[in-house]
């Protein structure tokens, strides 16, 4: 009971301050759309090429912009020493972690949807073939990024060179997620000659399940130091 209350309180608090300050969301949305824009300059105007690599590009944009969001979400706690009080007052560190994960998940999901739209317009992509598959890929992929990202942000928060450490540690961990998410997205967007997206979705789900459990179990020593 206390666990749920703590979880929702953290989630609500983060959402509320984000909605009032709009620091993360504004930066991220701008960043995402800007990168999509830059890609079309860097890769030339060959529409076939852009179409072919757009699922990969989309997930790369999400990966890079989520690092910004994750770092920011813990940096905000470091200001004014909020993290100390958060840890001392919270009835459960795990609820704290899950609450923060939930907010980050929402932020990443919003950026993902907006970036995907920007990409469809700028790259002239056709409407997705398989909409439920696409939605599932977005949800599961973003959940995984949020879980591991929040964990790694908590890990690197008090180290030197924090902003360099976070992607260095996080990105190799996310490779299975990136692979499955890109393939599922690709299948959903254009259909495939060979594959169905189902197996990739189950791999995403398994990945999320494993790390949601493992990170929740292992978070306490990170926040307590």
């Amino acid at each position, binding site marked *: 009971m206390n666990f749920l209350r703590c979880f929702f309180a953290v989630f609500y608090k983060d959402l509320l301050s984000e909605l009032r300050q709009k620091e993360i969301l504004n930066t991220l949305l701008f960043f995402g759309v800007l990168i999509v824009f830059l890609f079309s300059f860097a890769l030339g105007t060959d529409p076939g090429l852009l179409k072919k690599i757009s699922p990969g590009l989309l997930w790369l944009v999400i990966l890079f912009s989520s690092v910004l969001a994750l770092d920011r979400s813990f940096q905000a706690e470091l200001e004014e020493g909020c993290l100390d009080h958060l840890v001392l007052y919270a009835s459960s560190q795990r609820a704290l972690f899950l609450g923060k994960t939930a907010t980050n998940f929402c932020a990443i999901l919003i950026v993902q949807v907006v970036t995907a739209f920007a990409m469809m317009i700028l790259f002239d992509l056709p409407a997705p073939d398989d909409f439920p598959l696409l939605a599932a890929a977005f949800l599961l992929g973003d959940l995984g990024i949020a879980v591991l990202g929040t964990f790694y942000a908590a890990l690197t928060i008090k180290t030197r060179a924090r902003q360099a450490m976070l992607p260095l540690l996080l990105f190799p961990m996310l490779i299975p997620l990136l692979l499955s998410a890109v393939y599922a997205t690709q299948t959903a967007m254009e259909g495939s000659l060979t594959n169905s997206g189902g197996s990739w979705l189950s791999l995403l789900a*398994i990945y999320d399940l494993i790390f949601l459990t493992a990170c929740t179990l292992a978070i306490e020593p990170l926040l307590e130091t």
Partner: protein
Amino acid sequence: MRYITAVVLFIFFAFAQWWGLTQTPPDAMMGEVQKIMYAHVPAAWNSFLAFFVVFIASIAFLIRKKRRPEPAEGMFWDRLARSAAEVGVVLTGLTLCLGSIWGRPTWGVWWTWDARLTTTAILFFLYVGYLSFRKFVDNPERRAKLAAPLGVLIFLNVPIVYFSVKWWRTLHQVQSSPSTMDPAMVLALRLNAFAFLGVLILFIYWRYQIAKRKSEHEEAL
């Protein structure tokens, strides 16, 4: 005594390599190139073993922590994890280089996005990240506390990485088993696997001693 062990191990290692290079038949398809296997495969096996040691040591650190906050015992597990990670990274690097050299004549490319090669490369990145993370935390106790969950998490990712990459591209042959190999080759491979195991244990022991001296030196300051 310590030096004798080291010398014996290295003689055994050299013998195993010599055996693999000269006393086994060449492969029907690949010819003499196949003999890279006697260094490549044992290095790969033993690097996995080293990473498993990191995993176990990290778990041991976390479990011990809850029972009794006694720094000395915790530091043992922490140093063990660190030394095993270092040796594992070196062996993984060796595996990658040898695999690349083997791949050029057999597959026609230096690097291919094959499942096992790619998995090994990701492993390499993950554990290099683990080691560099340790470098960025100054306080030894804090470092131990933070690195332990990381060591566990990275190892949990290994099977997922393996399966995802395997589905992504599969070119590497199915795992060989003794029944698909010539007995002379199996023998040489086993011999070399034990030789590498000896080197692995010796290196971990040495790195552990260095880490211990270092922190003793720090404490004396």
